[in-house]
């Protein structure tokens, strides 16, 4: 079954996907940090058992997995696919994961909070993600009474999540905007509206592939719909600015612009070795080309799906044997050669 990130996105948009996360806690237990090992196991067991029928809610197939039953490689691959976060993967005590077959829905049990519901969907759809999370949330709260306070709303381990427990995010591709000198001040300006923007794939201050995530900073004192609206507005604004810059570049230097896109496509199509950084950057150029119509692919495709696929743990899980650095770069090139969409000349 195709995963959500492999589905084609909205054409002609720099918005890649939307993500909603709800943090909840069961009032029968202290927060995870203060639970005994016994309690952790019991909590996950009881939650897992009580939510066995959750698939009936929307006809989706789910699997349940204990975190300690997962290999390190599988956990890292799940992080790369954004199904879990690093802090959850490092959990020493008992923890569980309920994951839908398409990985659109994940429910992390006993991470930083007892329950974290996450929904991801292609395109600018934070509200429909929220509606799905909302329904799952109701299903869970019918079975497990949440910690809820008249003043503070849903009580969470971190007071920075308290209230709605909602983190709404939209991930945008900003290759031109992020290259501008004024990008940091733009990011800071957006912060004043209550959003936070950060790079998605990267290490040590680098962000390969120019993907940025816009999220709400505040969780208390605004309704879920208001929070989602703010994030959505910021994402639309960034998309518009990015579009304008792409158009300007295309008009001012059409040859240079097209050359960058086609060269990148050519390298991805024929290279025999690709580092993660290079592959991400070339995919980013190809993504731009597809969005602004320079590259016409045969049928719909998901460049973002390729960006996920070439992350190291995903490549390693596909390989039948352990790979060294050079073999990994070769596997990455193979992966892309086989999957890069055909283009119409």
């Amino acid at each position, binding site marked *: 079954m195709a995963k959500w990130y492999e589905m084609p996105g909205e054409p002609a948009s720099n918005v890649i996907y939307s993500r909603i996360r709800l943090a909840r806690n069961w009032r029968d237990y*202290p*927060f995870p*940090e*203060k639970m005994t090992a016994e309690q952790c196991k019991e909590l996950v*067991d*009881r939650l*897992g*058992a009580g939510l*066995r*029928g*959750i698939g*009936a*809610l929307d006809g989706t197939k*789910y699997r*349940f997995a204990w975190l300690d039953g997962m290999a390190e490689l599988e956990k890292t691959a799940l992080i790369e696919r954004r199904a879990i*976060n*690093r*802090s959850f993967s490092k959990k020493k005590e008992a923890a569980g994961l*309920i994951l839908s077959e398409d990985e659109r829905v994940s429910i992390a049990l006993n991470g*930083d909070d007892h329950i974290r519901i996450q929904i991801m969907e292609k395109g600018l759809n934070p509200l429909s993600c929220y509606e799905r999370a909302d329904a799952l949330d109701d299903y869970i*709260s*019918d*079975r*497990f*009474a949440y910690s*809820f*306070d008249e*003043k*503070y*709303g*849903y*009580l*969470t*381990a*971190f*007071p*920075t*999540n*308290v*209230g*709605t427990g*909602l983190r709404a995010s939209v991930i945008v591709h900003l290759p031109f905007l992020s290259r501008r*000198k004024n*990008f*940091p*001040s733009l990011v*800071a300006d957006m912060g004043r509206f*209550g959003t936070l923007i*950060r*790079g998605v794939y990267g290490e040590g201050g*680098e*962000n390969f592939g120019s993907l940025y995530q816009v999220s709400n900073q*505040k*969780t*208390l*004192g*605004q*309704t*879920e719909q208001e*929070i989602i609206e703010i994030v959505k507005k910021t994402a639309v604004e960034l998309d518009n600015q990015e579009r304008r810059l792409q158009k300007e570049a295309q008009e001012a230097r059409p040859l240079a612009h097209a050359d960058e896109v086609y060269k990148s496509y050519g390298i991805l199509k024929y290279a025999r070795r690709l580092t993660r950084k290079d592959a991400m950057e070339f995919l980013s150029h190809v993504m731009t080309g597809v969005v602004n119509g320079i590259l016409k692919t045969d049928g719909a495709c998901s460049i973002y799906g390729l960006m996920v696929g070439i992350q190291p743990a995903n490549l390693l899980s596909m390989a039948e044997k352990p790979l060294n650095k050079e073999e990994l770069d070769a596997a990455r090139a193979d992966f892309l050669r086989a999957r890069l969409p055909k283009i119409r000349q």
Partner: protein
Amino acid sequence: MLCEHCKTREATVKYVEVINGVKTEHNLCSHCARSVDIGQYSALFEGEFPLGRLLAGLLGMQNAESGTARYDSVACPNCHTTYKEFVQNSRFGCPDCYSVFDPLIGENIKKLQGSERHVGKRPKNLQGQADEVGKGHGTAGFGSEAENEAEGFQKLDAKERVLILQARLKEALRREDYEQAAALRDEMRGLKEEIKQDGEMV
């Protein structure tokens, strides 16, 4: 002012960082800020959210300035989290911590969140705890059992809705959004009418 990092370009970006109670102001050019800013966001994200560190920072700063260190040993009777522990990792140990530490940190939560009252969704089964389903079955047969959806959307009572509207009204006035404030006021008036008619209010 020149950028403190490269010392060649004009500083155009200013940001304040609070770590462990120490507040530092940085003046950077947009070029240098780019590497600093974005990198910082990525690094912080792993540990949940920058606001978390900021909260710990603010509290630590107050501790140093106003001698609130005497609160260090205040502890939650339920989970034994101390104020000191909270200042260190911005994390509560149990739901009770919120009421225990509210007098000490309520103002800071308000500062960071821009509000002190929840106005969004509420759990459906707020009153009675639902029976736990599937107890004793374990997680083995996961996903195999279809269940009927328990329907029963519990409407908030009018008094609770008035409370929520009040908070939103306050927030609207603070934002100087008078149009929304007027709409909220009307809605509240209507609700109060309803309450009167229902004879719920004294």
